[in-house]
């Protein structure tokens, strides 16, 4: 057993029992990060902070929300929005936060893709990140149902219906998910459970995994340079801070994070107070009505690109029904980003703009995703349907050709090197 002496300070007392000095070193003052990074590397912390805002505002909402089809709408729109002190503020933070978190997730994700931060030992970071993406999507979808407005109801109806297309078990699966033959009180209550308990727990676990997966490979840097962390941290500790290629998490990295975070918060609260309609769809302020289909049904903006891949295949091809092709394409879109570390066959870790072929691939992908997102909201008629069709095809093709493109690129890079 360890020997306990009289402690002279609270810190010492805690240190004897919890080893906090060591913990502080490992997690803070000697947790090393490359120096050559830009503000995009603060997005992870911005996400962590936004998630805490969602968690806290969510806990406040939970005190007054009622998961019952007869009470849900009024508990949100009357009790919380109008009666509870600052209830509207918590709801706006939660609603805007749920939308903005996806904007940051996408920036964070495409930063990873741009700098090639998903390979050379960073595969687990990438996979745990994709897991977070899936969990956040489920969290957003289940949360959107809770106010029991028109869009809550009809989005739930349309999205749960998608599962009906799965061969053999489809119909039973839909009933199993809904807990009823149609979207009903049982559906609301179970999605409420998912939203406030199961998925948040899973997210907390996944965030832990994501952070842990960063420890061994460390985060990437602006040039994709391989850094000898032992040596560089040695330099830093020896006082040669300017020569060292690394910085400690505390206080150097965090100082920049906090600055980026504060700028983000100004933008965030501007949206909370003045510009929230994009995140809290006006249509959802109409109470759910299963007898009145809204003229336009669409998911929240961050699901639009994959929704458009689902709708893009609007005509039967040979023996295959349009809806089946759409569903298969949708399934493809859901998992394909996770496979990126294995689709990219080039060993180069560098910013996309310094990779001759990948660069075109990356920017084409960005443009295709924006087009899919925009057309995912517009009515799928006339030319819109064809734009949707061709961009869905392009999206799929881009992933199919990625291994070929990156292999060719690897060859070209290798021969260039030989030439030098």
């Amino acid at each position: 057993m360890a020997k306990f002496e009289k402690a002279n300070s609270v810190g010492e007392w805690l240190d004897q029992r919890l080893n906090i000095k060591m913990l502080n070193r490992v997690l803070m003052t000697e947790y090393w990060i490359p120096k050559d990074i830009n503000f995009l590397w603060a997005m992870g912390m911005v996400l962590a902070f936004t998630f805490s805002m969602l968690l806290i505002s969510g806990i406040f909402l939970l005190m007054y929300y009622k998961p019952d089809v007869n009470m849900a709408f009024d508990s949100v729109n009357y009790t919380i929005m109008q009666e509870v002190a600052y209830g509207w503020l918590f709801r706006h933070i939660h609603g805007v936060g749920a939308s903005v978190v996806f904007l940051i997730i996408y920036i964070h994700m495409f930063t990873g893709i741009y700098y090639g931060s998903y390979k050379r030992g960073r595969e687990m970071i990438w996979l745990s990140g994709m897991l977070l993406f899936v969990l956040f999507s489920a969290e957003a979808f289940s949360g959107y149902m809770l106010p029991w407005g028109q869009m809550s109801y009809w989005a739930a109806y349309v999205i749960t219906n998608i599962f009906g297309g799965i061969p053999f078990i489809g119909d039973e699966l839909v009933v199993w998910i809904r807990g009823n033959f149609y979207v009903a009180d049982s559906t609301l209550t179970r999605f409420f459970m998912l939203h406030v308990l199961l998925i948040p727990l899973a997210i907390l676990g996944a965030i832990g995994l994501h952070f842990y997966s960063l420890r061994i490979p460390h985060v990437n840097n602006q040039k994709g340079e391989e850094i000898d962390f032992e040596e560089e941290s040695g330099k830093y500790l020896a006082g040669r801070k300017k020569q060292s290629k690394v910085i400690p998490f505390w206080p150097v990295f965090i100082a920049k994070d906090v600055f980026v975070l504060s700028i983000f918060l100004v933008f965030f609260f501007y949206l909370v107070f003045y510009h929230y309609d994009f995140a809290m769809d006006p249509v959802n302020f109409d109470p759910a009505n299963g007898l009145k289909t809204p003229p336009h049904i669409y998911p929240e903006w961050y699901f639009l690109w994959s929704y458009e891949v689902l709708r893009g295949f609007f005509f039967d091809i040979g023996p295959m029904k349009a809806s089946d092709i759409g569903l298969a394409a949708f399934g493809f879109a859901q998992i394909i980003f996770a496979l990126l570390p294995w689709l990219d066959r080039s060993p180069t870790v560098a910013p996309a703009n310094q990779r001759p072929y990948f660069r075109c691939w990356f920017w084409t992908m960005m443009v295709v995703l924006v087009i899919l997102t925009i057309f995912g909201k517009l009515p799928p008629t006339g030319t819109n349907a064809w734009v949707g069709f061709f961009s869905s095809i392009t999206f799929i093709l881009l992933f199919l050709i990625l291994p070929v493109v990156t292999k060719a690129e690897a060859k070209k890079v290798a021969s260039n090197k030989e030439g030098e």
Partner: protein
Amino acid sequence: MKELKILGVIIFFTLVTYWGVEPLAHSIFHPHVEPADFEFSDLPPVQGKGEVATGKELVVANCTGCHSIKSQGYPAPLDNASANASYGVVPPDLSTAGKIYNENFLANFIKNPAHATKTEHKFVGGKVHPMPSFNWMSDNDIASIIAYLKFIAPKEMTNREVFVDACGRCHNMKYAKIKATSDVSNYMGSTPPDLSMMIRSRGEHYLTTFINDPQKHLHGTAMPRVGLTQEAEEQVIAFLEEIGDSKKEEREALAPYVLGFLVFMAIISLLWKKEVWSEVE
């Protein structure tokens, strides 16, 4: 410098996406409509010479058989349930009609209610508007009725009063504890929605043109054009906002403090960052 370039790229992609899913999509979902016309210039002008005393006689002879005018001591001839059963909708009290309705609209409404309210498409195949057309009256008679209604109308009304008189026979407003006097679902063929949250779900812009002329947005809808003056309509919308967005003032008052504080924090954190990074760069 390089970081600003990156920021520029991100802002560019974000704004293009935003433009597509918000302004562009909205312009397609809600095609542009002409602005509200508070002159009701599609209706022919009714030019007559009106006299309050004649107007009073005409109203007592022709209108109080269905309508109450409580401010002048004319009670409702039927209780609400019976009136609802007989006419499909309870005829509204006329004490404030001279104030809230546009004069020319009112004249045309008395002459031909279905035409003025743009609901003729609902009254076909033997169905007639529950209020008879007084098209046999002379323009002077009609002008007199209006002169009388204006004479008895109050000079000032609260937003709530305007709402109850203009919309309250059809629409509930749960959050203001207002219950419609009638159940018009049979008469109209559709149930008027509760208006509590309309200010958030439709927004002021839509409501301004919708209330002025529902057909503009919902072609073929059963909701009649109500014929409010600009002032009355503004009061109705203000009321919808008081009820559906009651914390607007609090929100707008709090915003500068929170944003000011955050800008201040941003400056402090910039200084801290500069200080810390000066050691390593």
